[in-house]
């Protein structure tokens, strides 16, 4: 069994995230209405619908029977050559369709992930954390752009989160997306260092994101529109951290069983 993330896996992840955003659209907007400008759900939904359009023709549609897939020729960048370029396409799509603050932030997350996924891990620090045998295999596979093993995936995700942090100039505890994303990145890194399997690592990352999201409730916002409310922003869960948790939860659901298109995304 391959224990890595392919571009088909990324597509399955994004489809799961799009479904979660569509389902939680009103909830996200309600959270945003309390401390922001009441458009996070609709903005993210618009963006993820655009991403779904870009995924057309790319592998399984995420459900049973999917291998037959749409017969139509790939649209947009459905034929993206590897994980990195697919992630970058997703990033640019979100940047140009979501708007507001979430557009650049989610866009940057995927753009930076895509850049990191395409880099030679041998040239970077995080590679040292990787079990040697698996690392070599991952490097070989990644060179063909086929699949990213957990250590490389964790490093790419960490690069994405670092991009979000830099773009929003937000730190942990500012009551933002970072409060869900950063603990997830750390959980992935630790899981990779401990040599855990992908499925377990993603489950731990989702759990860390959920905890981080819940921890935003008592915080006073220091960034974004919510910060204008000062102390009145406390007592509300951050909408950005909530959508970020949905992203990590979708990864745990969709990527855990990733073996290309063979397994129709069974929940853990």
């Amino acid at each position, binding site marked *: 069994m391959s224990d890595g993330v392919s571009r088909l896996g990324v597509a399955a992840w994004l489809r799961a995230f799009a479904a979660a955003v569509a389902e939680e659209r009103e909830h996200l907007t309600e959270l945003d209405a309390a401390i922001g*400008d*009441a*458009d996070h759900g609709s*903005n993210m939904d618009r963006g993820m619908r655009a991403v779904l359009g870009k995924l057309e023709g790319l592998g399984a549609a995420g459900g049973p029977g999917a291998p037959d897939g749409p017969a139509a020729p790939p649209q947009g960048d459905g034929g993206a050559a590897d994980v990195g370029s697919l992630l970058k396409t997703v990033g*640019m799509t979100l*940047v*140009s*369709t*979501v*708007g*507001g*603050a979430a*557009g*650049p*932030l989610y*866009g*940057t997350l995927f753009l930076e992930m895509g850049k990191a996924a395409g880099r030679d891990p041998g040239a970077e620090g995080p590679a040292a954390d990787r079990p040697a045998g698996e690392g070599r295999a991952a490097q070989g596979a990644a060179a063909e752009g086929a699949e990213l093993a957990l250590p490389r995936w964790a490093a790419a995700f960490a690069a994405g989160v670092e991009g979000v942090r830099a*773009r*929003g100039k937000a730190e942990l505890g500012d009551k933002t997306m970072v409060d869900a994303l950063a603990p997830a990145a750390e959980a992935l890194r630790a899981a990779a260092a401990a040599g855990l399997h992908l499925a377990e690592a993603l489950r731990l990352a989702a759990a860390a994101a959920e905890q981080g999201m819940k921890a935003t409730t008592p915080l*006073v916002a*220091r*960034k*974004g*529109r919510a*910060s*204008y*409310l*000062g102390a009145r922003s406390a007592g509300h869960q951050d909408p950005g951290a909530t959508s970020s948790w949905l992203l990590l939860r979708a990864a745990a659901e969709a990527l855990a069983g990733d073996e290309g298109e063979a397994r129709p995304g069974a929940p853990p």
Partner: protein
Amino acid sequence: MKKFINRPEDAVKESLEGVAAAHADRLRVFTAPDYIVRADAPVPGKVAVVSGGGSGHEPLHGGFVGPGMLDAACPGEVFTSPTPDQVLAATKAVAGGVGVLHIVKNYTGDVMNFEMAAELARNEGIEVEAVVIDDDVAVKDSLYTAGRRGVGTTVLAEKICGAAAEQGRPLAEVAGLCRKVNANGRSMGIALTSCTVPMAGRPTFDLGPDEMEVGIGIHGEPGRERRPVGSAHEVVEVLAAAIVEDLPFARGDEVLALVNGMGGTPLLELYVVYNELQRLLGGLGIAVTRNLVGSYITSLDMAGCSITLLRLDDALAALWDAPVNTPGLRWGA
């Protein structure tokens, strides 16, 4: 909701089509991505000045595109920042080879979207400087908030920087002037009613018939306090006091005073406000040597007004007086 629109989701697009139809002689309007450029763009050898933001603040920014002011404007959805691809396309369309200034109002989304656009433009070899306007004294500026909002001073910065660029000044100088305007300009607004966003269909916030929101933002963000409606005299005292003590403006200063309508307030009332303002400032020994009265940075249909004061020196006054020829502001041309 009573509005002159067809479908709420088409309002921005159809308004842009209207702008294109009305001003085909001087503007070019592009869609997907949306941006407006002056008809003769790019002007070779001239610094280009680009701004943008959510729609709903008209004439800001599209109405200020033309010789002597903006080279391009990027309208987002109502009260939603434009996206980087829009800003990048506009930047490329007007770049005249000597750099582009982005004038950005200080809202989290605007700042990040313009930042990304500037990075993309630099990757394509275009020199970009960005200046963020944050002049709203109603908002406390601290390390722990997103900072002050950008409001009325934006109009003045666009005019003054546009004039400097038209005179052939280099990017560093035009950007420096923009920072100088921001450093010397202060604003505050007051709302008598909420605005209604077309897609929302109902007022953004509730305000009682006898209440006013002091320190309102241009998207209906709450201000400093809600209090009973006062006379024009009292309203001006509140706004002017907050503005004057913030910079602070001092006896002997010469200022440009902008009395701005929020979209739903008649000019008759704005002149009543201006009259009170000039009298009050005169009493403080502050001379209003330039003024602008009208609706220039609006909040859809909100009834309300804002006051902006900009401390002038001879250089800024001369740039303010320079010719401008845009749908929203025109003199000397």
